[in-house]
């Protein structure tokens, strides 16, 4: 633990997210206070504080069903992501590929890979539609999120999504993630006669990608 962490009166344990502020609030003891920042109010922050957590914290009031979201999706999203979320050209698909994660060509979509439904709401709200981000109303984002979930057969087309129901949605790949702690690779150090056979198994000159050129 750094001296700074001690200065802030923190308690640190091994592993990710190991430091935690203690029960009593703390003020740094070994740092000088400069006071150049200005207080900022919750009202001021409201337009920027848009994040939504996996527990639903940060979801605003509002509601929508897939049936209500469909026309908005078709107008604002389908040009890039396809009418059925299949993805146009190189734009990402939003639907399908369940059971593909253990295959040779896994495909990561909202339905096959995303662990939390709240992330769909957060991402569409902060970054989509591409080219005109943060232009949708809360009701529209609830409706579109419901529509994407329904296309993935995770909810029914008339199930209402709101700040209470959305965090309850259990995504198919909810248990698909392991938090990394330390390295997973332990290579040996060998200096002489380290490998038996040296064989070239792939070459850039054979690669289709390399032929696409620059």
């Amino acid at each position, binding site marked *: 633990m750094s001296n700074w962490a001690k200065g802030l009166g923190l308690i640190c344990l091994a592993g990710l997210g190991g430091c*935690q502020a203690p029960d009593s609030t703390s003020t740094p003891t070994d740092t000088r206070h400069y006071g150049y920042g200005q207080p900022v109010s919750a009202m001021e922050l409201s337009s920027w504080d848009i994040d939504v957590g996996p527990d639903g914290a940060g979801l605003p009031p509002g509601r929508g069903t897939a049936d209500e979201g469909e026309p908005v999706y078709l107008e604002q999203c389908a040009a890039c992501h396809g009418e059925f979320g299949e993805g146009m050209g190189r734009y990402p698909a939003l639907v399908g590929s369940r059971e593909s994660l253990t295959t040779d060509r896994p495909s990561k979509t909202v339905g096959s890979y995303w662990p939390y439904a709240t992330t769909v709401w957060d991402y569409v709200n902060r970054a989509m539609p*591409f080219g005109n981000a943060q232009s949708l109303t809360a009701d529209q984002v609830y409706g579109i999120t419901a529509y994407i979930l329904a296309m993935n057969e995770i909810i029914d087309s008339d199930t209402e999504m709101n700040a209470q129901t959305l965090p309850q949605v259990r995504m198919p790949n909810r248990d698909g993630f392991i938090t*990394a702690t330390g390295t997973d690779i332990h290579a040996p150090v060998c200096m002489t006669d380290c490998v038996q056979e040296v064989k070239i198994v792939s*070459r850039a000159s054979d690669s289709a990608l390399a032929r696409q050129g620059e």
Partner: protein
Amino acid sequence: MTRSKSDKHPEASARRGFLRTSLLGGLAALTAGRSQAEPAPLPVPPWTHHPGAGVGSAPYGQPSSFEKQVIRRFLPWMRATRESSVSFTPLADLHGIITPSGLHFERHHAGVPAIDPAQHLLVIHGLVEQPLKFTLQDLLRYPAVSRVHFIECAGNGALEQRGAQLNKVQYTHGMISSSEWTGVPLRLLLGESGLRKGARWLLAEGADAAAMARSFPLDKALDDALIAYAQNGEMLRPEQGYPLRLVLPGWEGVANVKWLRRIEVGERPWEMREETATYTDLLPSGKARQYTFIQEAKSVITSPSPERPLPGKGAQVIKGLAWSGEGKVKRVDVSFDGGRNWRTARLTGPVLDKSLTRFEIDWDWNGREALLQSRAIDETGYVQPSYRELRAVRGTASMYHNNAIQTWLVHADGEVENVQLG
């Protein structure tokens, strides 16, 4: 020739005399072998006769016009749009451990915003005693820290994980760059706001049209995280986050949020799209490793490389780059026979924490095919893995954090090809 102090010392002077004679003898033998005719005097070019451009002709200086090929490059077919895409640093053309700011690789998710610093703020809120907002001018008043660190995209080398693909070190490894970053330690600003009970994770968010957002643990914030406003002595380049970016030394590029406008303190990670749907490492089991922040030890030979073929057989100086997100590079080994035998290279310095490090090794090339590799070992003892070792654990679909050993096949004509070994 001017006289130097050593002329007063007979011993040194005698040694120099010997060196001079043997050098001259060697040169004479060489020229004699090459041509019979007496060579013409060396030319005196026009720039030696006439003055060049006056001061102020280039208020912001540019590289020589003879260096036009040294540019970032991108592959149009790689991504759906140029706004969410990547351009690569020309590693084979660079020297030392600092990447010129204009050649720092780019990875944007919604283009490069043109931010007016007068309209930009950094806010710190959440589990803090006093939520605060800072202008750039406010931040410039704090004590400044400058440190040299690399930033590497987690996707550097992603295309190569299934097999050798692209025949340029610029494309296989060019999503890494290294700069001197100047800014305010984040822990200092958290000291200004104070922390409340339960504070454990932070969210960093950009002001770009992707509103890029990533969670990171408080430990890192209190360790070496920097709110950077400058890069290599000047304000950040727009492509690197002007006017503010988060620098999390040694951690995957995407977490070094550019155009930084907001830091929220909370109890748990936010599970943002860029830490769930993307930037997670899918394993053969179908499970994915998440919050794989650290860019583990890696290295690559930049000369020779596909861009730098060998000019002919004989004495060569092999040159390359090594780095580790966990600290200093301790050692780099080089193999000329596809990993069968290794020799330790010299680190030419400076060797800094979580920074690009230069290595070199001498090699006499006999003109036959050779398989060149480099392997970095960092101060924690971590050893850069071969593709075989990496794939044994991660398979071929994990995409991110590919730090496997690169193999260059040197053909008999000196051309160099990107290959992988079984």
